[in-house]
C-alpha cells in the first residue's frame, strides 16, 4: 500500500476513534447537561460527533476507492500530484473544521455544521479526487457493477455538496419551506451518494473474497443498482413528510421508497445462500465484518421501510427512532463495511493469532452492544411518540422524563461499544504499522541492493 493511502487509512481510523469518543461523551452530556454546560456543552459536542462520523465514512469510502482502483485498472495513468493535493487539502480542512468547533465557530447546518467558507477547500479537494478517479477510469461496456457504483458515488457527492450550498443564494432563503426542502433533498441524496461508494467497495470485496466475478456482472445486481439509484434521486422526500409543501413531493417519495420492499424480499429470499457462504468464509475476518453489515442492512431496511410510510412517520418523525436508523446505518452498515475494506487492504488475516482472536472476540462484543444501543434508541423513540402523538402531551419536559431513563441504557451501551471497538482499531493500527515497516524494508532493500553491488 502506498504511503499516501496509509495516511488516509490511518486518518480514517483516527476519525472513527474520535467519533466513538465524542459520541460517548455526547450521550452523557445529553443526560446531564447541567454538568456538561460548564465544560463542553452539547451544542459543541454534537457537531463534533456528527462531523467526525461523516468524515470517517466519506474518507474511509474514498480510501477504499483509491486503494482498489489500481487493481481494477492496473494500466491506468496515475496522478500522484493531484492525489496528494486531494489528501492534503481534505485532511487539513477536516483539521481546521475541528479547530473551528473548539472556538465555537459554527455554520449551523445539519451534517455541515462548520463555517461555510470551509466548504471551498473541501470542494477543491473533491474536484482533485474526481481528476484522479477519471484519469484512471476507463469507459467499458462490461465494467463491473462496483465501478458503476463508485462512479455514481463520487459524482453524486459533488452534485449534492453543491446543492447543499445553494442556500447562499438569497432566493432560496426567501421561502423557509423551499430552503428546508432543498436542504433535505441534498442531505438525503448525499447519504445515497456515500452509500454507493461504500456498497461498491463491499461488492468489490465480495468478488475478491469469493473469486466470483459474476456477482458484479449479473442482471439482478444491475437491477438493484438502478433501484438504489432511483431511490437516491427521488426518495429524499421521506425526510420532510410533515412539511406543508406540494403533495406530489410527499407522494413521489412515498411511492419510490416503497420499491425498496423488493430489496427486502430479495434479501430474505437469498438468506439461505447467505448462511451457507457465512459458513464457507467464516475464517476470514474481513468477511465477518461484511456479513455483519448485511444483517444490519436487513434490520435497518425494515425500520426504514416502516418509517417511510407517512402514516407511521407521523409518530416516528422527530423521535429517537430516526436516530436509531441513522446510527444503525452508520455503525452497523457503513462502519462494518469500512472495517471489512480496511481489514482486507491491511491484510489483518496475516496478523498474529492472538491479535486475530482478539479481533474476533471484540467483533462479537461490538455486535452485542450495538443491538442493545439500537433497541434502546427505538424504545426511547416509541415512548416519545406514544406520549407526544398518541397521548397528545405538550410539555417537553413531561414527554421526555421517562424517555431519558431509557437513554441511560443507550449511553451505557455506547460506552460498551466504544470499549469493544477500541481493541479492533488498535489491531488495525498495528497492521497499518506492520505494512508501513514492510514497505520501508522493501524500499530500503531496493535502494541498498545496487549500492552493495557497486564494488563488483
Amino acid at each position, binding site marked *: 500500500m502506498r504511503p499516501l493511502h496509509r495516511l488516509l487509512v490511518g486518518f480514517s481510523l483516527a476519525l472513527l476513534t474520535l467519533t466513538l469518543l465524542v459520541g460517548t461523551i455526547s450521550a452523557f452530556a445529553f443526560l446531564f*447537561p447541567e454538568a456538561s454546560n460548564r465544560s463542553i456543552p452539547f451544542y459543541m459536542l454534537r457537531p463534533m460527533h456528527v462531523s467526525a462520523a461523516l468524515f470517517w465514512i466519506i474518507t474511509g469510502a474514498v480510501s477504499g476507492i483509491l486503494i482498489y482502483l489500481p487493481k481494477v485498472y492496473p494500466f491506468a495513468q496515475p496522478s500522484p500530484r493531484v492525489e496528494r493535493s486531494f489528501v492534503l487539502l481534505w485532511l487539513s480542512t477536516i483539521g481546521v473544521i475541528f479547530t473551528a468547533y473548539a472556538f465555537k465557530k459554527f455554520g*449551523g447546518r445539519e451534517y455541515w455544521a462548520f463555517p461555510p467558507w470551509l466548504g471551498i477547500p473541501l470542494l477543491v479537494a473533491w474536484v482533485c479526487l474526481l481528476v484522479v478517479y477519471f484519469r484512471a477510469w476507463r469507459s467499458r461496456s462490461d465494467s463491473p457493477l462496483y465501478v458503476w457504483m463508485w462512479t455514481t458515488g463520487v459524482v453524486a457527492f459533488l452534485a449534492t455538496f453543491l446543492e447543499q450550498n445553494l442556500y447562499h443564494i438569497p432566493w432560496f432563503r426567501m421561502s423557509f419551506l423551499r430552503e428546508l426542502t432543498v436542504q433535505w433533498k441534498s442531505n438525503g441524496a448525499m447519504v445515497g451518494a456515500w452509500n454507493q461508494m461504500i456498497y461498491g467497495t463491499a461488492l468489490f470485496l465480495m468478488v475478491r473474497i469469493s473469486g466470483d466475478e459474476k456477482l458484479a456482472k449479473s442482471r439482478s445486481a444491475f437491477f438493484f443498482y438502478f433501484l438504489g439509484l432511483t431511490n437516491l434521486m427521488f426518495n429524499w422526500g421521506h425526510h420532510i413528510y410533515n412539511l406543508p409543501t406540494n403533495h406530489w413531493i410527499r407522494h413521489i417519495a412515498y411511492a419510490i421508497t416503497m420499491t425498496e420492499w423488493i430489496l427486502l424480499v430479495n434479501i430474505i429470499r437469498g438468506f439461505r445462500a447467505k448462511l451457507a457462504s457465512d459458513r464457507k468464509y467464516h475464517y476470514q475476518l474481513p468477511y465477518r465484518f461484511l456479513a455483519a453489515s448485511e444483517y444490519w442492512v436487513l434490520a435497518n431496511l425494515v425500520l426504514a421501510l416502516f418509517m417511510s410510510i407517512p402514516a407511521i412517520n407521523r409518530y416516528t418523525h422527530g423521535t429517537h427512532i430516526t436516530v436509531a436508523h441513522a446510527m444503525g446505518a452508520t455503525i452497523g452498515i457503513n462502519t462494518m463495511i469500512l472495517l471489512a475494506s480496511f481489514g482486507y487492504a491491511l491484510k489483518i488475516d496475516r496478523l498474529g493469532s492472538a491479535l486475530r482472536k482478539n479481533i474476533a472476540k471484540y467483533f462479537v462484543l461490538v455486535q452485542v452492544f450495538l443491538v442493545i444501543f439500537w433497541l434502546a434508541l427505538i424504545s426511547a423513540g416509541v415512548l416519545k411518540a406514544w406520549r407526544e402523538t398518541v397521548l397528545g402531551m405538550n410539555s417537553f419536559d413531561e414527554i421526555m422524563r421517562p424517555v431519558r431513563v431509557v437513554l441511560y441504557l443507550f449511553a451505557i451501551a455506547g460506552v460498551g461499544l466504544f470499549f469493544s471497538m477500541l481493541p479492533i482499531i488498535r489491531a488495525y493500527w498495528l497492521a497499518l504499522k506492520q505494512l508501513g515497516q514492510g514497505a520501508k524494508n522493501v524500499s530500503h532493500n531496493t535502494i541498498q541492493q545496487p549500492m552493495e553491488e557497486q564494488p563488483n
Partner: protein
Amino acid sequence: MRAFLLFLCLACAAFTGFVYTSEGPRTEAAPSPAALAGIQLWQDKNCQSCHQLYGLGGYMGPDLTNVARKGDQYMSSFLKSGTERMPNFQLSESEIERICAFLHWVDQSGSARVSADAVHWTGSYIIKP
C-alpha cells in the same frame, strides 16, 4: 443500461427544477430583515444542534417550529437566561429580537404536527394549508 442511466439523470434534473420553482399550497411571506438576521444567528449559535424545526435537528430541547405562538415574552425569557438544560448564550436585546423574528417567520410557514385527519387511506398525508 447507459440509456436508462441517462433517462434517470434527465428525470432527476427535471424533478429538481420542479422542486425548486413550484409554489407550495401555502403562500409564504418573504422574511423581514430582522428574520433574515435571525436565521444567521440561529446558525452561528448552532441552535439546531439541540432544537428541531419541523422535527429536523437535535433532540436535546423541544421543537421550536410553532413556539412563536406562545409569544415574545415566553421566547425572550428562555433566550435571556437559558435554563437548567440550555446554556445562557449572553444574547443582547437586539439579538433576541432577531431570533424571535425568525421564529415568527417559521411559525407562519405551517404547523410542525400533522393532524390525524391529514392521513389519507393510502398511508400518505394530504396537509391542507
